[in-house]
């Protein structure tokens, strides 16, 4: 695309750097903002900037948070004896949407995959062990996608947890959640949490 303005070009390239947005859509968005009063553009950029600058990761579970400890961890009405271990923040959102789960979470930040350069030391495993060591946990739910690397991760964690008096469970596998929690519909995901079972190698 050829632009007569470097400013327009930069804006188009900025939009187009986002996932799912091509050059044409980026141009449309840019021209749309241009046709609107400047406040509209400010209203768009300010929350994004503020979000990026001020967002924190919960000191306990690594969930996104506006405060040091996230709203889930600080909610005393939730069951403090259960921790649901997930790969990413998006999995928390998916599980929260089911309204079926009242325990706590722990975000690993991925799965073990040395090919991708991710070893156990690159994930939030130590902080999980610290939480379990504190002694309030009775059950750890592994809500990790049933891939080979997911299996490796669950198995590795379960070995680390053997030293503690906690029950390790996994989501019911008979119920397919399409490989990734994110894509599961709320009903099936809710069911597979309710029907979780004891983890066996």
């Amino acid at each position, binding site marked *: 695309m050829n632009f007569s303005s470097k400013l327009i070009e930069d804006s188009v390239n900025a939009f187009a750097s986002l996932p799912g947005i091509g050059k044409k859509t980026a141009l449309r968005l840019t021209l749309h903002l241009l046709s609107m009063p400047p406040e509209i553009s400010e209203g768009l950029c300010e929350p994004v900037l503020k979000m990026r600058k001020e967002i924190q990761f919960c000191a306990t579970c690594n969930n996104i948070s506006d405060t040091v400890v996230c709203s889930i961890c600080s909610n005393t009405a939730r069951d403090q004896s259960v921790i649901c271990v997930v790969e990413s923040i998006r999995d928390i959102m998916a599980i929260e949407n089911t309204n079926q789960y009242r325990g706590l979470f722990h975000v690993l930040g991925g799965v073990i*995959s*040395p090919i991708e*350069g991710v*070893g156990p*030391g690159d994930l939030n495993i130590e902080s999980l062990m610290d939480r379990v060591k504190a002694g309030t946990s009775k059950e750890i739910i592994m809500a990790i996608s049933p891939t*080979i*690397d997911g299996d*490796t991760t669950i198995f*590795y964690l379960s070995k*680390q947890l053997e030293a503690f008096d906690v029950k390790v469970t996994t989501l019911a596998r008979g119920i397919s959640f399409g490989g990734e929690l994110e894509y599961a519909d709320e009903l099936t995901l809710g069911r597979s949490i309710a029907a979780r079972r004891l983890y066996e190698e």
Partner: protein
Amino acid sequence: MQLKALTLTNFKNYESQTLEFSTKVNGLVGKNGTGKTNLLDAIYYLCMCKSYFGMPDSAIARHEQDFFRSEGHFYKEEEEFKVVAKVRLRKKKELECNDVPYSKLSEHIGLLPVVVIAPDDTRLATEGSEHRRRFANEILSQLDREYLKHLIHYNKVLAQRNAALKKMAAEGRHDDALLEVYETQLLPGAIYIYEKRQQLMQDFLPIFTKTYAAISEEREVVTCAYKSALHNKSMEQLFAESRTKDKFLQRTTTGIHRDDLVFSVNEKPVRRFASQGQLKSFILALKLAQFELFRQEKGSSPILLLDDIFDKLDESRVEQLIQLLSKDTFGQVFITDAHKHRLAELLAQANLDHKMFLVDDGKVEILD
């Protein structure tokens, strides 16, 4: 199993081509480099979801094209199987059977059994063990879907364990717990694959020795034995014993990925002691035994792809092979040859029902 029609789009040097085949012998003739072998590979691709010659998908797509397609109409008795491979580069490979896409390509393997005989098959005897493992895998994955699933899983976990060993060495911190996890994940596949390979060699050996005797004029004794560390020790034991060595070498030094087949003539290794003639007969017998095993196990003849057999086989063996093809145990056969008339004459002499195609730079015409 017969392939009645093939349609190619952007497959190697074929921009757009539809061919209707004889259900018996199909001769593909033309100068070298004009695309005869590509036609065989397109057929193989529909059976095995990949190139026989190890060509990556990006190299199969015609020059400057980002997709290719191969469509085959196969018949098993009266039943039709329309198989379509659609490959867009950098996208997930798609394969359909009767318009239903497979969720996993491995589910397709074995539906259309195929055997290839190609000039560089001699590698089986002369080069590294990976060629012989590939031979065994190619047979077993077409006979047993579980085998292929286990093999894919095993190879993925193995790659992760090797990467873990490298990462640990680079970081100077060894995590035995993670290595153990990988070993446990490798275990069921290793055991399954080991047992199936052992069973295969039991079934294969008598067919192979009989085939060799039929095509060789001499009376030498040939064998093909399965060599595996698992003969003497359990996989758990092997992993435990090798861990120190694995850490040092930064790769997994034991397992079914180190298995081999030992080929011998008169109790001596083929690689070093067989004559050129014995070597050629040996390789041909391996492939024909693969064909016979498929025929027995599947209850029908697999498709046979013969690439440039005149190149590596001497004339007497080619004639012998053509004679064999006239037996009713053979089904549909595809043969390539660089000489326009040699093949047609041999087929006519053997009184074989056939159709001839002249291949010229991505264009094919039927010869009468």
